[in-house]
């Protein structure tokens, strides 16, 4: 008989061995020689954490109590694995493409990254799994106590051993579960250790089974006969429980946080499922193959009242097979430890990601933009979470003392199965909404709490009156007979009500509520994951990562900068090669570097593409879209500014041209003016010199010369008057003397003064009836314009019988006065020039200074009208347009 000390020594040795395996495979994973670490066999074996100590020890006890019902615990997962094409394939694909870290993360991602939902799932998982962890502690301490009973020299105390076991497991989980913050939450070391434990527990159970069948029972046929003769020898089954527990096990297999961790999060390659689909059911079959024989032989051999949960251990001990008992103990120990470690890791990830980190970030008030120290905070919070979860399990074990192993396990299953409607609905139904999931989950959770967990763990948590009379004294609310339906098995009753009401609420509320945009996008991504995600490639190996990163960085940062950056990193890492290893620190710095060029979200997505090999999530895309929207806005602002600048430049150019033109005009004007002044001055000087210097001039000559001088002086005066007039008009300093009058009167006066004293024979044709128009204007100035035009016709009309036609009519609501003579008109090339200063059509008929029409135009523009040359008439034709706001006489 092995003493307790030897047992503890073996136990510690085994743990050290597992440490070594985990450590070595972590190192191997880091140095990239990990091909076998990622084999489907390891994946299949890691799934075996489904088989906990409950399975290892409890299945035999279960069989001893209820016959073949224990097998339903395995049939459910078998059907799920066989049907991987339905669900698991999609679940794994979604988990990988969405970089899911836990089941809570998956549910929250699906329903629009709702952290409330994640918190609910996390709380539910912690409450459901804590008893399960306690169960493992109980099984380990029970197995210790079995050995302690056979060792009289030991000082064994159950409580302290449970404490040390819990502490040891917490340390192991912390050491290997939170050593680094892997972006993908993968832990090669732990997974490998679990695979080894899976082999150990299978071998242990098979060894005990073989010993029982062939060593004690004497072969297959005798043992079958023995089974038929035993107290569980006939097929007796509670049909409801058979179906319910099969379903429950299937649901829990998918929803349990630790199963989700190894099945989805730690999955390296979707194709591993193909092997696991048949290999894991085979593992389960082997695990349960000898359960009934062991139970039957135990019932036969062991004394009345011995715990059937421990037959696996007690039968070899009773038969004096110390080595076999030791192996069985190690098998049970493996089952318990692997489950506890993975469950604590998975739960701590959930707790720290969805509860601790949001609170911490919120309390920091800086949002998620801080980097660097966050990783340490996350690791720290995970470690604390693991410790807290283990402590919870320990206290649960201490205070309840544990019941039959199987019943606690089923309670945990029923609790965790409440996630199933939200999970399945989220994967297959695009109409599932966050509110629906939340309501369904809450209802299911409360019903499970009320009908199964609180009555199940007993110890007076629900008072006797509630149990017999129902909540608030309402009879139909009795925990074991909701709505008055009695006689059901408690598990069946609870699972039926909680899951069906959960599903109904989930569907109804989903139908009635409306999802947010992010939720709808995520829903489409999840439900149609095979349309969106890449093929079943494994996560991109780390071999080519640095090179890919280098290529990408060169494109973004520029070749020289990228090479310098990578070289500096490689030197900092110890200069093992040209390229640095893609460590988290390096990736973080690179992401920051790239973020400076392309924005944080885009950089994150790019690095995620290369390192994670996962597809970009909707949130990433939204962030990228936000950034590009900002960029676009910025560039459109730039564009607006630049077009404004070019407009300004254009205006400046125009102004410059105008100024140049004006300067040229001024020069031309000055030379014109000096020329115009010089001509009369020359004649005045010449004739005054003649008058002064020539003696004996005839009186008539003197008179003639004086007349010439006088005429020229008059001409000068007229010119200066005109110039003065023009400059006053042009400078805008003219004051208009607005009066009311009539057009015909103005024309009459103008004709009178223009034709007065003239010897010409100009005939003026008018149509007086059209001229009776009242107007308000500066009548003197208007008359001045008319006079100018009439005297022009008088001067320049070259017809033999000059006729001037003055017609008044309405053009588009504007009163115009046309002055058309029957002369040869103004040559086409001169038409554009007639309104310029000093423009004279023909030099031989120079009468004025050539300022008349320029003054006319200025006057009319001051008066709000215009003077234009009318083309297409027989002679010279001018049109005076009066201001548009003329009041039309009603005559």
């Amino acid at each position: 008989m092995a003493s307790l000390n030897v047992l503890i020594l073996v136990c510690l040795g085994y743990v050290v061995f597992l440490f070594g395996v985990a450590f070595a495979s972590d190192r191997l994973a880091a140095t990239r020689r990990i091909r076998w670490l990622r084999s489907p066999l390891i994946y299949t074996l890691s799934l075996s954490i489904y088989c906990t100590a409950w399975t290892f020890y409890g299945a035999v006890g279960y069989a001893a109590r209820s016959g073949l019902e224990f097998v339903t615990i395995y049939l459910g997962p078998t059907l799920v694995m066989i049907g991987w094409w339905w669900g698991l394939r999609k679940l794994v694909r979604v988990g990988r493409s969405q970089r899911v870290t836990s089941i809570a993360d998956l549910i929250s991602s699906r329903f629009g990254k709702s952290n409330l939902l994640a918190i609910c799932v996390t709380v539910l998982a912690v409450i459901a799994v804590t008893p399960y962890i306690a169960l493992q502690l109980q099984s380990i301490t029970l197995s210790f106590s079995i050995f302690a009973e056979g060792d009289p020299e030991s000082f064994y105390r159950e409580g302290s051993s449970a404490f040390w076991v819990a502490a040891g497991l917490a340390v192991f989980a912390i050491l290997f579960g939170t050593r680094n913050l892997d972006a993908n939450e993968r832990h090669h070391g732990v997974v490998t250790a679990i695979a080894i434990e899976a082999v150990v527990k299978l071998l242990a159970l098979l060894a005990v089974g073989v010993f029982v069948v062939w060593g004690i029972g004497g072969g297959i046929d005798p043992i079958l006969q023995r089974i038929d003769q035993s107290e569980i020898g006939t097929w007796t089954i509670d049909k409801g429980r058979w179906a319910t527990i099969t379903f429950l096990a299937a649901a829990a297999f998918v929803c349990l946080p630790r199963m989700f961790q190894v099945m989805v999060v730690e999955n390296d390659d979707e194709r591993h499922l193909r092997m696991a689909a048949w290999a894991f059911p085979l593992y389960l079959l082997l695990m349960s193959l000898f359960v009934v024989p062991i139970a039957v032989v135990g019932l036969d051999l062991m004394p009345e009242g011995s715990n059937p949960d421990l037959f696996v251990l007690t039968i070899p001990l009773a038969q004096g097979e110390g080595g076999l008992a030791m192996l069985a103990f190690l098998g049970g120990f493996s089952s318990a430890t692997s489950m506890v470690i993975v469950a604590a890791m998975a739960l701590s990830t959930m707790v720290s990601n969805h509860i601790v980190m949001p609170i911490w970030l919120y309390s920091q008030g800086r949002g998620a933009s801080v980097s660097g120290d966050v990783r340490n905070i996350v690791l720290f919070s995970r470690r604390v979470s693991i410790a807290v979860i283990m402590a919870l399990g320990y206290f649960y074990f201490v205070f309840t003392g544990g019941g039959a192993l199987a019943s606690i396990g089923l309670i945990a299953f029923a609790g965790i199965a409440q996630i199933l409607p939200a999970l399945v609905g989220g994967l297959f139904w695009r109409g599932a909404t966050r509110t629906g999931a939340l309501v369904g989950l809450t209802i299911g959770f409360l019903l499970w709490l009320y009908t199964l967990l609180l009555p199940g763990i007993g110890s007076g948590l629900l008072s006797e009156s509630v149990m017999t009379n129902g909540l608030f004294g309402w009879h139909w609310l009795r925990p074991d007979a909701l709505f008055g339906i009695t006689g059901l098995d408690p598990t069946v009753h609870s699972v039926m009500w909680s899951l069906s009401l959960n599903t109904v609420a989930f569907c109804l509320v989903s139908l009635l509520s409306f999802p947010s945009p992010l939720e709808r996008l995520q829903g489409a991504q999840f439900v149609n994951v095979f349309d969106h995600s890449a093929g079943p490639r494994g996560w991109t190996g780390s071999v080519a990562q640095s090179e890919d990163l280098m290529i990408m960085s060169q494109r973004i940062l520029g070749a020289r900068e990228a090479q310098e950056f990578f070289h500096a990193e490689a030197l900092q890492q110890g200069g093992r090669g040209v390229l640095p290893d893609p460590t988290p620190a390096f990736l973080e710095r690179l992401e920051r570097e790239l973020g400076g060029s392309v924005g944080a979200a885009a950089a994150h997505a790019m690095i995620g593409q290369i390192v994670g090999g996962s597809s970009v999530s909707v949130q990433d895309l939204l962030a990228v879209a936000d950034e590009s929207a900002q960029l676009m806005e910025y560039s459109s602002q730039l564009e607006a500014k630049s077009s404004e600048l070019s407009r300004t430049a254009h205006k400046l150019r125009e102004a410059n041209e105008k100024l140049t033109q004006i300067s040229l005009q001024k020069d031309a004007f000055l030379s014109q003016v000096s020329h115009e002044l010089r001509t009369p001055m020359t004649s005045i000087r010449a004739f005054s010199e003649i008058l002064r210097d020539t003696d004996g001039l005839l009186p008539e000559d003197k008179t003639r010369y004086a007349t010439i001088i006088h005429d020229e002086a008059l001409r000068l005066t007229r010119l200066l008057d005109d110039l003065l007039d023009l400059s006053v008009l042009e400078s805008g300093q003219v004051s208009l003397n607005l009066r009311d009058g009539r057009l015909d009167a103005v024309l009459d006066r103008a004709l009178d003064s223009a034709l007065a004293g003239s010897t010409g024979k100009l005939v003026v044709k008018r149509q007086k009836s059209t001229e009776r128009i009242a107007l308000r204007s500066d009548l003197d100035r208007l008359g001045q314009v008319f006079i100018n035009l009439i005297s022009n016709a008088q001067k320049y009309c070259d017809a033999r019988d000059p006729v001037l036609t003055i017609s008044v009519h309405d053009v588009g609501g504007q009163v115009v006065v046309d002055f058309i003579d029957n002369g040869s008109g103004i040559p086409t090339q001169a038409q554009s020039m007639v309104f310029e200063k000093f423009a004279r059509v023909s030099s031989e008929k120079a009468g004025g200074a050539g300022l008349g029409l320029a003054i006319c135009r200025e006057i009319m523009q001051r008066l709000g009208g215009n003077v234009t040359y009318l083309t297409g008439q027989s002679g010279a034709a001018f049109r005076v347009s009066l201001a548009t706001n003329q009041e039309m006489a009603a005559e």
Partner: protein
Amino acid sequence: MSVGPENETGPVQAPPVFLEKQSYRRRRLSDAARLLPIFGALLFAIPLLWPDGSGEGGQVPMSAAITYIFGVWALLIVVGGLFGIAARRWSGSDPGSSERG
């Protein structure tokens, strides 16, 4: 996995109505894979029809029950394994999806 019809129906172009013989076989294979768990669930439900031990009818001995359950179980594993091999062969013949593990 290129066996699923989902991968063959791109979001842009409409899927062809008729497929080549190989693709057709491949789809029926995935149909079979989908049917397998339903078939298994039915087989595992058959013991519910067996006469209960409490009744006076012919009782089913435990050894027969064990043989039946484990027989069905083994059958499912074998069929599942065959399907896995077939799926592997088909995907192995696809370019660009070489087996790694």
